[in-house]
């Protein structure tokens, strides 16, 4: 084990004492000695270093601090110890380790205030961001050659094509759950056959697009925030600006466009997968043959249900991409913020999607697409 540094307290006549430090006064061995010296009280006249076998800056600091606090003098210091003490004695040892924290009672209102301000600034910020994006979008429409076609295709692949597997599987399973749970309830009224209406309409109107939106927010919204946030940290975004490439045009338009284009397709695909899931369950559990289920779907699901789903989807895509890109562009300072902003992007996107979905539900019912 380690040879701990130690001290002996030699009380001479009267009050004054000599503290003799012994052993290895190094960072590895000083822990217990430091506590002992801190607990020391009474007058100390000398700190004797002649018994010290080895010393480093930490040992020098401890010896010097002890001497300073007790108004003692250091004796028996080796040439190295003196050199080290000379080097460290300029430190006042009072600087803050962390920025000062306000009192607890102040922190709560401050946090609430920051939250309110942050909410307000966030709303202004994201509106401004939407505006910047629309302006840039208008430029792209007027000069279609400036559209980053390759980036768009890449994002379409990431947002849409590579999501097919997971979105399909998830919707298929959700379809099974809806059909099965619906059948259990409807059986009580002898209305099992309405399972088809339930599954079909729910999938087309709500579930397909909503579940897809949540999945896309988790997969792609987070990726947008993290990617752009990291690019901000490494000053890639600044580099783009100086070269004359607009980050909105190069980074954000392709992502937003990809999300807006892919959401309706993915949403419709998810709805179909959910219906297939329902039909699959009906085939085995409800004695409704697979193809009978599908042909009944055609009869019981009005075409406006499909439109409802398809109209909502691009708005959801826009919100997800906007939240992701906006949060990514807000990253500053450090790596922790990339994580925070990514979380915020996903939470905001899902929340906004659900709020908007509620508005859409009321709206479509009122226009007679109930």
């Amino acid at each position, binding site marked *: 084990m380690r040879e701990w540094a130690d001290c002996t307290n030699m009380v001479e006549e009267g009050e004054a004492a000599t503290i003799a430090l012994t052993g290895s006064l190094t960072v590895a061995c000083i822990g217990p000695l430091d506590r002992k010296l801190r607990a020391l009280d009474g007058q100390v006249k000398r700190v004797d270093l002649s018994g010290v076998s080895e010393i480093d800056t930490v040992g020098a600091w401890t010896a010097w601090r002890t001497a300073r606090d007790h108004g003692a003098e250091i004796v028996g210091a080796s040439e190295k110890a003196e050199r080290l003490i000379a080097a460290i004695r300029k*430190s006042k040892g009072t*600087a803050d380790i962390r920025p000062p924290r306000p009192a607890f009672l102040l922190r709560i209102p401050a946090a609430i205030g920051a939250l309110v301000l942050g909410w307000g600034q966030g709303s202004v910020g994201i509106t401004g961001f939407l505006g910047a994006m629309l302006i840039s979008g208008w430029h792209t429409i007027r000069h279609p050659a400036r559209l980053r076609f390759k980036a768009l295709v890449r994002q379409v692949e990431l947002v849409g094509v590579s999501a097919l597997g997971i979105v399909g599987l998830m919707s298929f399973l959700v379809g099974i759950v809806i059909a099965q749970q619906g059948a259990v309830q409807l059986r009580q009224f002898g209305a099992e056959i309405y399972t088809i209406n339930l599954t079909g309409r729910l999938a087309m109107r709500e579930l397909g697009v909503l579940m897809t939106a949540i999945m896309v927010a988790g997969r792609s919204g987070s990726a947008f925030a993290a990617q752009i946030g990291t690019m901000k940290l490494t000053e890639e975004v600044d580099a783009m600006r100086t070269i004359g490439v607009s980050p909105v045009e190069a980074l954000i338009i392709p992502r937003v466009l990809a999300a807006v284009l892919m959401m309706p397709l993915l949403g419709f695909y998810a709805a179909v997968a959910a219906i297939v899931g329902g039909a699959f369950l009906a085939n085995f559990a409800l004695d409704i043959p697979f193809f009978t289920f599908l042909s009944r779907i055609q009869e019981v699901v009005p075409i406006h249900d499909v439109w409802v789903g398809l109209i909502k989807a691009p708005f959801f895509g826009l919100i997800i991409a906007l939240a992701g890109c906006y949060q990514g562009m807000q990253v500053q*300072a450090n790596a922790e913020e990339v994580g925070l902003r990514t979380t915020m992007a996903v939470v905001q996107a899902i929340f906004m999607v659900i709020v908007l979905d509620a508005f859409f539900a009321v709206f479509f019912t009122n226009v007679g697409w109930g």
Partner: protein
Amino acid sequence: MNGKAQPSIASPARSDPPIVIEGLCNSFGGNVIHDNLSLTVDRGEILGVVGGSGTGKSVLMRSIIGLQIPDEGSIEVLGRSITDAEEDEDIDIRSRWGVLFQGGALFSTLTVAENVEVPLLEFYPEIASELRHEIARFKVMLSGLPEDASSKFPAELSGGMRKRAGLARALALDPELLFLDEPTAGLDPIGAAAFDRLIKELQDTLGLTVFLITHDLDTLYEICDRVAVLAEKRVIAVGTIPELLALDHPWIQEYFNGPRGRAARSAQAGASQKRTGKMDNPAGRGA
């Protein structure tokens, strides 16, 4: 933390070289970086490592500190083999060196002082928090930062200050060995000269052995005891600058006798003349 190491630190007379590299080979996917490279660093010296871009200076440093597993060869640091070290031994060696990465590599969510405290907390948890804070403060001061920089976050610091903060963290455990990767790159000449002086002072005060990668000719002339030249996938020469200048190798000649090399040398000559007081320049030139 292996107790065996402690008594050996206590004997300053030890003169065995702290870094011994033999037959080191490194390659990345068929691209050979080092081929049979050997190098010995002596105790208490500042060894400058130079070489063109892409000659594997940083890879060499990463190999020595165990971040890069070499294909072949043996590396001994402070008497321990890095290439086939046991996990426990690894920890022990790591508490005896400090590394300053090029950009400082500070932990961005911690303040400067907390960055310095990380190794202390990791290796010596028995140290009381008051002492740990005090150590952090004086290390920050030793590395030439104002003490109120202790509570700042890395993002609030300039590039030069970040390097100093990185140096403070590298010095946290009073290491015997200090690795510096281009410490003066990206600093203004005044800041770079101050950083050179700081390293020299620290080396004198703390008795460090310094492994220093640099492109800065002024640094080489000002503070390096010896210089190792990396070229042709190995160390082609090690020695003091006059010794290197006597060698007839085109890269070395171009490096030290190029316009920048000559400028650095004459600056050094001027500085040492001033120091020794032999001002035989025409009046006014030295002022």
